Structures are given as structure tokens and as C-alpha cells.
């Protein structure tokens, strides 16, 4: 069975249009981020969070009333998909008799006749929160740097730059998507926590994997078609790898989709983020990373009039 046979699509000819698409996406995302702020979980900002399950459905308003009485006015209360599962969150995190205890007594005292169990409590101190945040930024920056160096060694510097710009693009778009979807579907619980960090690093890994495979073919084809323009060589490379790109991205997307639907709430945010990442990662390999390399090369060729390829491979 073959889904794609000898395609000959002029991907890179349309790159200017897709630049526009990417820029629009990023701008919209940044606006949403600016208006809404990045939804940070308590991992990165400190606070106390408690997930409770009631033995009977309960209204959010009833729970909110109980929390107001317990001294947690304006506490963040989210339903977790059902009317008996809730997530309670406050930036507070006291010493001694902790916030978690107070929340529990608050529910016990103010909600009569409903039993509940605490599924999970997390308390993160501000210092730890700050450290986790710094470490997250380090993790992203260093992995991008590591990839940049490795690709510069294996390909050329311009390819490394193309790949890393593509990764920046993917990260930005995914952050925007998270912010937008969090605004529309709060029950997805999309917010930046440690798991989300894992999702971002995975999507970086996946996206660069995809880019590398196209670049690998370009590297090979440049040697084969020495007299052709880089844009043509690239188009050829993207077309010959298209089948693998679609099949791989398709199967990974399928996997992540299954995790998203059936994986339970712990995996949901992870799966969502990564699903977005698979789409933008596949897209950016062609329309960002490869496109940048083409434009860069054209520029050099224009400068040097006539001298064709600068490929060292």
C-alpha cells in the first residue's frame, strides 16, 4: 500500500505565503498571551493545590461559598470533567497548619452531608517554584543550544540556524495554542507545570527529528544534483521524504490522540501540547527551517553572483 507516489509539489515556492501564516499565528498567540498571561501552574509560581472527589455531585457555587467562608475568598476552583471532581488552588502556602488542612476543614465545616476524599495535594514553596522555573528555562535554552551545535557540526551553520528558528517557532505557536485553548476550555487544565515542560522538550525533540530527516536528504541530494538551484533540490528532498513525514507524523499524532482521549487527566495536558507540537513541528520543518535555508542561500548567491553552492558536503 502506498499513500503518496512521486509527488512533485512546489512547497518552497509558497514559502512567503506560509511565512505570513506563521507570523499571523504567532502574533495572535502573543496577543492572547499578553492579555491573559501564561497560565502558570503552582510548580512554577508556588502555592497549594488540592484535588478532591465528592461522593455526590456538587455545584461549583456551593464549593466556592464554602471556601469563601473558610477564608479563601476568590480561590481558583476548577471542575475536573465531572460534577464531583474539583481542583482547588491558592497561591498561599503556609507553614505549620498548612493551607491544605485549612481547605479540608473548610469543606468539612461548610458543606453538610457530602463526603469527599482528597485525591492529591501539592504544595510548592515560592523558592522551589522559582528554581523550577529557572531550571525549565535552562532546560529549553540548553537543549536548543545543544541542537544548534550538533547540527552546525553535522550540516552547516545555516541549517542549524534554520532548525533552531523552526524550533522557536514551534515553541511559540504551542505556547500560544496552550494559552488560547486554556481560555476556551479551562477544564483541559492546560497550564505550565513540570509535565508541560516535558511535553515541550519532547516536541522540540520530535520537531528537530523531522527537520533533520529532511535536511539529511537535502545533504544527500545536493551532492547528486550539483547543478540545480538549492530551491529545486530542497523541493525534491521534501517531496521524496513526504511519504515518511506524513506516515511518521500521522502515527505519532494518532498515538498522542489516544493518550489525549484515554490517558486520564494526568496525561491530558501533556498529550494536548505534544499533539499541537506534532502539527507545527511537521509544518515548520518545511515552511520555516527549510525555507530559511533557501532564502539565506539565495541571498549569498545573489551576493556572489553566479557561484552556486556553498555546500561543504
Amino acid at each position, binding site marked *: 500500500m502506498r499513500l503518496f507516489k512521486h509527488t512533485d509539489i512546489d512547497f518552497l515556492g509558497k514559502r512567503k505565503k506560509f511565512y505570513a501564516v506563521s507570523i499571523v499565528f504567532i502574533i495572535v498567540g502573543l496577543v492572547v498571551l499578553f492579555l491573559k498571561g501564561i497560565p502558570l501552574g503552582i510548580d512554577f509560581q508556588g502555592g497549594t493545590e488540592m484535588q478532591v472527589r465528592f461522593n455526590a455531585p456538587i455545584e461549583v457555587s456551593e464549593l466556592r461559598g464554602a471556601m469563601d467562608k473558610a477564608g479563601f475568598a476568590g480561590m481558583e476552583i476548577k471542575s475536573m470533567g465531572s460534577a464531583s471532581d474539583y481542583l482547588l488552588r491558592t497561591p498561599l502556602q503556609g507553614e505549620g497548619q498548612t493551607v491544605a488542612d485549612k481547605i479540608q476543614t473548610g469543606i468539612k465545616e461548610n458543606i453538610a452531608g457530602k463526603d469527599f476524599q482528597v485525591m492529591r495535594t501539592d504544595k*510548592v514553596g*515560592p523558592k522551589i517554584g522559582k528554581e523550577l522555573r529557572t531550571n525549565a528555562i535552562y*532546560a529549553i535554552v540548553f537543549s536548543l543550544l545543544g541542537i544548534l551545535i550538533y547540527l552546525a557540526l553535522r550540516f552547516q551553520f545555516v541549517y542549524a540556524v534554520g532548525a533552531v528558528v523552526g524550533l522557536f517557532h514551534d515553541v511559540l505557536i504551542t505556547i500560544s495554542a496552550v494559552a488560547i485553548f486554556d481560555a476556551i476550555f479551562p477544564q483541559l487544565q492546560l497550564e505550565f507545570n513540570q509535565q508541560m515542560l*516535558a511535553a515541550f522538550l*519532547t516536541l522540540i525533540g520530535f520537531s528537530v527529528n523531522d527537520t533533520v530527516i529532511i535536511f539529511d536528504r537535502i545533504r544527500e541530494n545536493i551532492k547528486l544534483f550539483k547543478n540545480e538551484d538549492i530551491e529545486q533540490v530542497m523541493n525534491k528532498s521534501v517531496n521524496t521524504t513526504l511519504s515518511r513525514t506524513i*506516515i511518521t507524523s500521522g502515527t*505519532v499524532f494518532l498515538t498522542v490522540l489516544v493518550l489525549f482521549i484515554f490517558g486520564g487527566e494526568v*496525561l491530558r495536558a501533556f498529550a494536548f501540547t505534544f499533539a499541537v507540537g506534532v502539527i507545527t513541528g511537521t509544518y515548520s520543518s518545511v515552511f520555516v527551517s527549510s525555507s530559511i535555508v533557501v532564502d539565506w542561500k539565495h541571498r549569498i548567491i545573489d551576493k556572489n553572483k553566479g557561484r552556486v553552492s556553498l555546500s561543504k558536503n
Partner: protein
Amino acid sequence: MKKNLLRIILTVIFIAAAIMYLLPTYQDYQIGKQLAGLTGQDSLDFVTKNADKIKKSRDGRIKLGLDLKGGMYVVLDVDVVKLLQDLTKKKDDATLNQILDDLRNVPETSDIPLMEILKQKLKEKGLNLKSFYGEVRDSEADVEAKLNKEVDNAIDRAVEIVRNRIDQYGVAEPQIQKIGGKRIIVELPGINNPGEVRKLLQGTALLQFQLLKDPESAVKVMQSINSILVGKQITDSTGTKSNKLDSLKSKDLVTSKDSTKKELAGKNDIKKDTTKTKKDIAKKETNKKDSTKTNKKDSTKKTDTSKLAGDTSNLKDTSQANLSEEEFKLKFPFFYLVRLNEQSGTADGYVREQDKEKVDLILKREDVKSIIPSDVMFAWSQRSFETGGEKIFTLYCLKKDAELTGKVIEDARSNIDPQSNTPIVSMSMSSEGSADWARITGANINKRCAIVLDNVVYSAPVIRSKISGGNSQIEGMGSVQEAKLLEIVLKAGALPAPLKIAEERSIGPSLGEDSIKKGLTSSLVALLLVALFMIVYYRTGGSIADLALIINVLFVVGIMASFKATLTLPGIAGLVLTLGMAVDTNVLIFERIREEMGSGKPFRTSVDIGYKKAFSAIIDAHVTSIITGIILYQFGTGPIQGFALTLLFGLAANLFTAIVITHFIFDMLIEKGKHVSIG
């Protein structure tokens, strides 16, 4: 063919190793299933019968992370302000207290070290650190260095205290880690009681000096416990007993001692250990003096034992010959578990690690508790020694009332004694404590005094002489580490290690169950879908790829078991993603082969060229992912590291399966002249 042979051998070795490492996990699962079907006495019998097997499989199995199993994760930080409050000489100084209160309000996220802020604030008021924390001859820099060192020491003390308590609390597989020199991470699987754990971790440690009960009465107490276990009721444990009973008991004791010797084959080890526990508290004594003291002690020991053995010594041999291991167990259940050693002249009970829990249960029984005299308590040794491959703990019989608490200790330091070249610990006491200490040591020469932290005995040295002046020296440590530990423990008694909880996560068991169920099912469903697609799309090639996938999973899980790594939910996600990469690798190769075939090359050549050409892309893709994985492991914590770890293991396994195993299967099939369809 030669190349194939190497591949076959490698593959077989790796698969065998993976299976070997996974065996304990499987056994543990089986045992769990068997146990679930049993109740009450049956399950207890099952556990006793299979103790070794259970322990072995439990040690070797893949551990589940807190997110899958439920439990608590706590990060503890040293409370520097509290420490500064405890350390100062002028606890009532209003200015200092005001400054320390201000320090409390410094936001935790501040980047300036508290010590700097303290110095600054003192300077503003025209004061310095020295006036609150130093001695006359210290320089300001010395004082600062000393304070910083105290902060470091505090974390060591805290680790010891926390470990000690958690061991006593009885958590299975706890993890206590010191991170970055200033923090403790505690993981308690299966525990879901935040309040209690908080108390456990933050409470002040209690260090006490407690005298040991004299061996004679200690043995009597143990005898009465034994009698209760065999069902003989004793009305008065210390007073008069019938002659018959008495003689029987003396006989019991002798037998038990002998069989201890028999059981713990390495008699020397025990001796060694006893000498080890005979740590000398003394103010530098000459060797000669020391040896006379020892002799004196030995003679008392002799009288002790002869008294205990009594006139039944004639019976000794016959009874020993008559009693088999089983009979002994039946008649003297307590001494079967708690072995005494006649030679040592002490009543230290030696207990195998797996029997510890049983002894604890016995000591907690109401009827047993009621016959233990009110001034007596039992306590475990912190350290164990090994005999015949088994860990042996010591059970001490102590006087309940502490002679002195650790608060009187001013300082403790471990050192190497220049004269004997052995590790020693010196400790100094406050003037108030010194007076008490002189009285206590003077009245109890040649008796043993246990150093007890939170009810666990760290050392039980013999008092050699009256110690006046408060400077004592403890000798006889087996190693520098042991001395260092005792130093930490003594200091823990002197100074509480003020801790605050910086991070606390608790996951209820039902949530853990929920996530493992959902995580596993969804992963399986995803995997099946992908596998099915591969077969449909690539036919035989797809089946080979699927086989590689299965081997891949086996490898990853096997590597995890061999590294004793913990499987977390993000870990499962990482596994699924490596499988994604594995599929990609195969797709890449197959598409390449198809391309080559499309250009008219024969199948065999196409396969070889396909693998060769796909290789560079596979390597580059994997190396970049490995780079991200390593960085993730470096900067992530807990669950994220789990994710990075499975990712890394998966990538390594994948390189092997895709490049070696599938290629070799292709080669084999082609050589056999079979047509291999790749769709």
C-alpha cells in the same frame, strides 16, 4: 554469515539479560496475586515461608513512582533563621531578635543569602556577628565561616534524624536524598497522611543517654516474654518462681546461647561486633589501665553467666543435643528470634533483619507489655552487622529513665586518635551537664551507657572511669564513617536541625490507581493501533518492525529494572514516544527501500542500500533527541527525570533494534529465498 552470527549472539544476549532483569518484577506480581487470594493466618504463613523469595523479587522489581502508586513527596529546607536563633549566645537580646524577625520576612525568592543580609543589618546597628556568635579570640570572618558550616552541618543532622524516624515509622522503600548540599528530598510511597509525616519530619530530635539494664535482669525480662509466648503465665517476673520452672529456664537460656553460636556460624564476627559495641567512654586512659579494667569486667561477666547457668550446667549438653532447631523454635520462640551470646557477657539480643518486625510485634503485645517492668525498655541498634550474608540487628534492654539528654552537649567532633590511630569521637558538655555526667559516670563504672536518638541506639559504650570536666572521648569505632555518624548524632542532640517544608506533594492511592490504569490502557491501545497500521501498510516489513517494537519495549523495561529506575507516568509517556521514534526509524528505512526498488534495483540490493542511506538520518535524529533527553534529565526533577530516563533508554534500545535486529531478520529471510513484502 559471520556478521549475522555476531548479530544473533548480541540479540540473544540482550534479550536474555532483559528477561533476567524482568523476572523479579514478574515474580513480585505473581506473589502479589497469590497474596491477594489469601487472608489472615494463611497470608502470614505464606509470607514467612517465602520470605526470601519475596524480598528478592521486591528488591529487583521495577519500582513504581509516587504518581502511580500514591504516596508523599516532601522537600525539606534548612530554616536558617531558626538555626541562627538557636545558635546565638544571647538568646534574649532584643536587637538581635528584632533583626532575626526581619530576616523571617525577607521573601524566600531573594537572591541575596540570608547571612549577607544579617551582616548588613548588624552593621547598620553598629554590631557584628562576633558579639552574638563568636568567642573573644575569633575574627569576624572566622565566625561567619563557622556559621556557614553550621548550616551545612544542619542538613547532615537532619538527614540522619529524618532517616532514623522514617525507618521507625515503617515505610516500605523510602527514599531520602540530600540534594545540592542544602536540601533533603523524602519520598514515601504508599503513605497518605500528610499531618503525621509533617510531624515526623519536623519534630525536634531527642537524644538521650540511657544506661543498659544489667545483663542478669535483662535476661530475666526476656525469659518472661518467652514464657508468655509459649503460653506459660508467670505471676511475678522478678520474684520467686517454682524450682522446676527456674531450672527449665536456665536450661533454656543456655541452649539458646549455644544455638546462637551454631546459628550465627561466624563466632568471630559477633565477637568483633561486641568489641565494636564496647566503645569506651574515657578520658584518655593508658593501655594498661584499660586492660585491667577489661579484665575486671570479664570476671564480672563470668560470675554473671555462671549464676545464670546455675546448677543445671550438667543438663546443658544433653538438652542441646536433644533439641532440634524446630523444637527450639517451639519451646523458646522469643530466644529463637532474639539470640543471646554467652561469651559477650551482655544481654544484647541479636536479631536477623527479617525477624525485626516480628520482634517488634511481640514487644507491642498487650500481655507482653504488661510483664515488662515499668523501668525497662527495649531499643534497636541503628547499625547492623553481617554474618553469613544476613543482616543482624542488636536489641538492647535499657533503663527507661534517661540519665541525661543531649541538650547538655556543647560540641562533638570525630577525629583520629594520634596515639592508637583509631577513630574517636570527643564530646564536650555544658558546665551543668558536666556535673551530672561526673556523678553518673562515677556511679556506673564498667556499666554500659547507650547513646539513644529518637529511641534508636547508636552506640552503647562501656563507662571506663568517672568523667569530670565534661570532656568525654568515645573509642572503638570501626571506621571513620561510623565516628562521623556518631558525631552527627551527638550534635543532633545538642542542636535541633530546624527544617521547613519547601515542597509537599501527596497523591492518594486511588488517583495513582486511576492514572496507572488509564495510562497503561491508553498506551497499549495506541501501540496496538500503530502496530496494526504498520502491518497493513508495510506487510511483512511491518511485522518485522512490530517484532522490533516488542523487543524494544522489553529492552527499555529491562534496562529500567537493571538500573533500579522508577517508572512514573511521564515515564510511560516517554516510553510511548520512543516507540513513536522506533516506528519512524522503520518507516524511514522502508520508504528508502521502496525508493530504491522504485528505481529498478533488485530487492536484496535495495534493502542494503536502504539501510545504508537511512543510517545517517537515523543517527542524527537520535543524537539530537538524546541531547534533549540528557538536558531534561539534568534540569528536571522527580517525574520529569523519569520521562527523560525512559526516553534515553528507549532511544538506545531503538538504535540497536532498528539497525541490528530488523536488518538481520531481513537478511535471514532473503537468504532463505523468501520474498519479503514491504507493501
